[in-house]
C-alpha cells in the first residue's frame, strides 16, 4: 500500500441516540481521513462525541438507543456501516483494535492477562493454545512486562501496567488501525508519559495508524499528525498539528488554547471559555457554539456553518470563514 493512500475515510457520518427525552445528535456529518501510519487526534470536551465516533468506527454503538443515521466509514476500501456483524467480528481486534479509557475496568478480573491476550490471537489466527500463549508472552515483553507474568491476574498489576496489557491485547494481531480512547486519562502524569512513549514506539514498529481520542492538547502535540477538534458532535476544525498550533482558526479552538496556562507569562487566572457545553438534546440553532462564541454574528444563530477549506488541508466549520472562500 502506498503511503498517501487513505486507510480510513469517514464521509458524512451521523450517529444519533434516540431516547425518550429527545434525539441526541452525538456525531453530525463528520468527515475525516487517516492515511497509513498516520495518527489523528480527536479532541473535544466530555460529551462532544469523541467516544461515539470511535464506537461508530467499530460499529459498536449501543443499539438501542444509538444508531448510525447516515454516511460511510470506508476502511481499506470497504464500507464498515454496511457489513454484517459476523464480518465485523473478523475485523474487530484483528484489523481495527481499540484501547479503552480505564485499564482498571477494561480487563476481565477473573482471567489471567496471558489468557486475555491469547484470546484475541485465538479468535483471529489459526493457532493452537500453546502458540497463542507464546504470542501472549511475546506481546507482554513488547510492552515491557516480563513474559513470565502471563499467569497473573489483572489485580496483581498496577494501573500503568494494566494499560500496557490492554495495549498488548490491542496490538496482538498487528492491526492496521488502533483507536485509543483517552488511553492516559486514568493514569498519573509520569505513567502517562511512559504509556504514550510506548504507544508511539509500537506504532512505528508495526506501522499502525492511530486515532487518539483525548481532551489533552499536550498529548496531541506529542503524538499526533493531524487533529480534529470536536464540539457538540461536529468537527469544527480539522488540520495538521503544526498548523493547528500555529494558526488556529475557529473561535472555539482559539478558546481552548487560551485556557491552557502559559508557564512563561505571569498570570494569576486561567482564561476559560465562557459558558458550558449545550444540553445534547437541545443544541442551539445554527452554529452550536454561537452562544459562547466571542465573535458571534447575527447570522450564526440562523444558519449552520459549512465545512470550509481555509487553506489546503485546513478545514473550519465557522461562518467567519465562509465568506473568505475562493
Amino acid at each position, binding site marked *: 500500500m502506498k503511503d498517501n493512500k487513505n486507510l480510513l475515510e469517514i464521509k458524512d457520518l451521523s450517529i444519533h441516540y434516540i431516547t425518550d427525552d429527545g434525539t441526541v445528535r452525538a456525531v453530525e456529518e463528520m468527515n475525516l481521513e487517516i492515511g497509513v501510519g498516520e495518527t489523528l487526534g480527536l479532541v473535544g470536551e466530555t460529551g462532544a462525541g469523541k467516544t461515539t465516533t470511535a464506537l461508530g468506527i*467499530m460499529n*459498536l454503538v449501543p443499539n438501542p438507543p444509538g444508531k448510525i443515521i447516515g454516511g460511510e466509514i470506508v476502511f481499506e476500501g470497504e464500507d464498515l456501516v454496511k457489513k454484517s456483524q*459476523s464480518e*465485523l*467480528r*473478523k*475485523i*474487530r*481486534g*484483528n484489523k481495527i*483494535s*481499540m484501547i*479503552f*479509557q*480505564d485499564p482498571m*475496568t*477494561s*480487563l*476481565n*478480573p*477473573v*482471567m*489471567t492477562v496471558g489468557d486475555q491476550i491469547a*484470546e*484475541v490471537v485465538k*479468535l*483471529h489466527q489459526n493457532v493452537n493454545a500453546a502458540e497463542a500463549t507464546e504470542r501472549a508472552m511475546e506481546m507482554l515483553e513488547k510492552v*515491557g*512486562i*516480563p513474559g513470565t*507474568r502471563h*499467569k*497473573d*491476574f489483572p*489485580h*496483581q*498489576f*498496577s494501573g500503568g*501496567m494494566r494499560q500496557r496489557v*490492554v495495549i498488548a*491485547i490491542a496490538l496482538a494481531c498487528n492491526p492496521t488501525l488502533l483507536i485509543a480512547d483517552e488511553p492516559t486519562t486514568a493514569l498519573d502524569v509520569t505513567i502517562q508519559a*511512559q504509556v504514550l*512513549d510506548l504507544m508511539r514506539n509500537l506504532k512505528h514498529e508495526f506501522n499502525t495508524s492511530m486515532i487518539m481520542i483525548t481532551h489533552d492538547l499536550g498529548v496531541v502535540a506529542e503524538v499526533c499528525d493531524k487533529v480534529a477538534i470536536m464540539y457538540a458532535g461536529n468537527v469544527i476544525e480539522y488540520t495538521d498539528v503544526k498548523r493547528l498550533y500555529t494558526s488556529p482558526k475557529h473561535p472555539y479552538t482559539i478558546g481552548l488554547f487560551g485556557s491552557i496556562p502559559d508557564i512563561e507569562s505571569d498570570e494569576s487566572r486561567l482564561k476559560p471559555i465562557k459558558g458550558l457545553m449545550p444540553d445534547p438534546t437541545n443544541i442551539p440553532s445554527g452554529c452550536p457554539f454561537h452562544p459562547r462564541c466571542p465573535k458571534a454574528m447575527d447570522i450564526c444563530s440562523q444558519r449552520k456553518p459549512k465545512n470550509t477549506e481555509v487553506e489546503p488541508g485546513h478545514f473550519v466549520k465557522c461562518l467567519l470563514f465562509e465568506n473568505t472562500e475562493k
Partner: protein
Amino acid sequence: MSKIKTSNNQEEVKAVSKKKRSPWVEVWRRLRQNKSAMFGLAIIGLLVFCAIFADLIAPYGIDDQDLRARFITPSRDYLFGTDNFGRDILSRIIYGSRVSLQVGFIAVGISALTGGALGAIAGFYGGRLDNVIMRFVDILLAIPGILLAISIVSALGPGLQNVMIAVGIGSIPSYARIVRASVLSLRDQEFVEAAKAVGANDFRIISKHIIPNSMAPIIVQATLGVAGAILSAAGLSFIGLGIQPPTPEWGSMLSSGRQYLRDYWHIATFPGLAIMITIFALNLLGDGLRDALDPRLKS
C-alpha cells in the same frame, strides 16, 4: 525511560511473587479462616464419605428385616435402634445419604443450569426476550414451590428421577433472577465492551467473560439450594410422592416413623436429625462462602 521501566518491573515482580494467587485460592484461604463454615464443610465431607462407602460402613443391609428385633430402642447392637420391620435405622440413614445427596446436587444442577442460562440470556440481550423469559420465571415464582413440585411429581409419577426434576424446576426462578441481575451489572462493564472490540461473539462473551464473573452469587445460592432441595425431596417423600419404599430416604423414614412416635421416638428422631444436621451444615458452608466471596470483606 527504559531504565526506569525495567527497575520498576523487577520491583513489582518481587512484590508479586510472594502472593501469586488466583482469586479462587484467595477465596479458599478466607473460607478456611471461618470456623463454622469449615465445620459445615467437614460434616458435608463426612456425609459424602458415608454415601460413597455406604456398603462398607453400614452394619446391616438396607432392607435386612429381623422380625424378632422390631422396635428395639438404641442399643449396642443397633446404635439408632430398629424400625417396625426390624431394620437397622443407622444403616438406612447411611444409605439414605446417597439418595439425599444425589437429589440435592442433581436438582440444584438442573435448576442452576437452566435458570442460569435463562437469566444470562435475558440479562444479556434485554428487550423483548428479557421480558418473555422473566415473565415465564415470574409465573413459576407465583406458584408455591411445594405445590409446583407436588403437581410435577403427580404428573410424572413418583421416583428418584422425577423428584429431582420436580425439585429442580421449582428453584429455577431464583437462579434466573440472580444470574440476570449480575449479568445486567456486568453487561455494561468496559471489559465486556473490550471483548466485543476484539471480535468475540456473544456466546464467548457470555460464557468466558460474564458467567465467570457472576460465579460468586451462584455458588452461594447453589450451596444453600442443595439444602433446600434435600428438604423439598424429604417433604415430598414424607407425603408419599417422593422416593418409594423400600429405598431408604430420610423423608419417607420420618413419615413411616410418625405413626409410632408415641411409643418409639427413635424411629422418627434419627432421620429427622440427619436432615437437620445436613441442612445446618450446608447453610453454614453457604454463609461462609458468601462471606469469603464478598469482595468488600477482602482483607
